[in-house]
């Protein structure tokens, strides 16, 4: 199951959805909005996606993972829009017969998501500035919100 949503992610429902009698291991990963990044204080994040491609790439990643590990079930939900401190931005759940596979598959799913899925976040810092996060491009702080 793959989903982009503007609503809070029901992480419990996602976890339950991958439980299965064939699986002995479930791994759930949650990305949450962290307050401090390299000494700067974040108040909120805005997430944006190119949704058609994001969904297609998430399916592709899940299919690749299924060729590498014996995945019993999986679910990936990414939230979009304005997120406050502590909110869950992404949830990846995977079940496998054994734990090593479940950890490796979970790790692959979130690592690859962060590499190739067209979703972007904009930091809202406590000094009133905002900044799109684009790894490899120079950081460029945009106009203070108060202007």
């Amino acid at each position, binding site marked *: 199951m793959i989903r982009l949503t503007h609503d809070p992610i029901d992480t419990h429902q996602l976890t339950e959805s991958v439980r299965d009698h064939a699986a002995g291991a479930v791994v759930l990963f949650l990305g949450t909005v962290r307050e401090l990044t390299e000494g700067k204080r974040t108040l909120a994040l805005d997430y944006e996606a190119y949704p058609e491609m994001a969904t297609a790439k998430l399916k592709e990643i899940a299919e690749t993972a299924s060729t590498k590990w014996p995945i019993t079930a999986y679910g990936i939900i990414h939230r979009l829009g304005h997120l406050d401190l502590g909110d869950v*931005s992404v949830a990846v759940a995977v079940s496998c017969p054994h734990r090593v596979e479940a950890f490796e598959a979970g790790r692959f799913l979130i690592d690859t998501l962060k590499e190739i899925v067209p979703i972007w976040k904009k930091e809202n810092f406590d000094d009133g500035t905002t900044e799109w996060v684009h790894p490899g491009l120079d950081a460029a702080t945009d106009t203070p919100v108060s202007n």
Partner: protein
Amino acid sequence: MKLAVQLYARARDLAGLDQVELELNEPASVGDVRTALADCVPELAPLTRGLLIAVGTDYADDSLTVAAGDTVVCFPPVSGG
């Protein structure tokens, strides 16, 4: 031919536009799109090397040919998760 290019994230904010209409000679490649974008929207010029271009729902490299009617999308490196 005319080609609409959708912009996302910092590329959209810098351009001040969701979408740019380019006029390209045929045949046109993704590399031509990249060059035309920087000419048409000077604000994007400092980013152009780092911008990614997708055709439809796949990443495209500069050698790929684009045709009128293709969905062409341009964005800086991703940061989801």
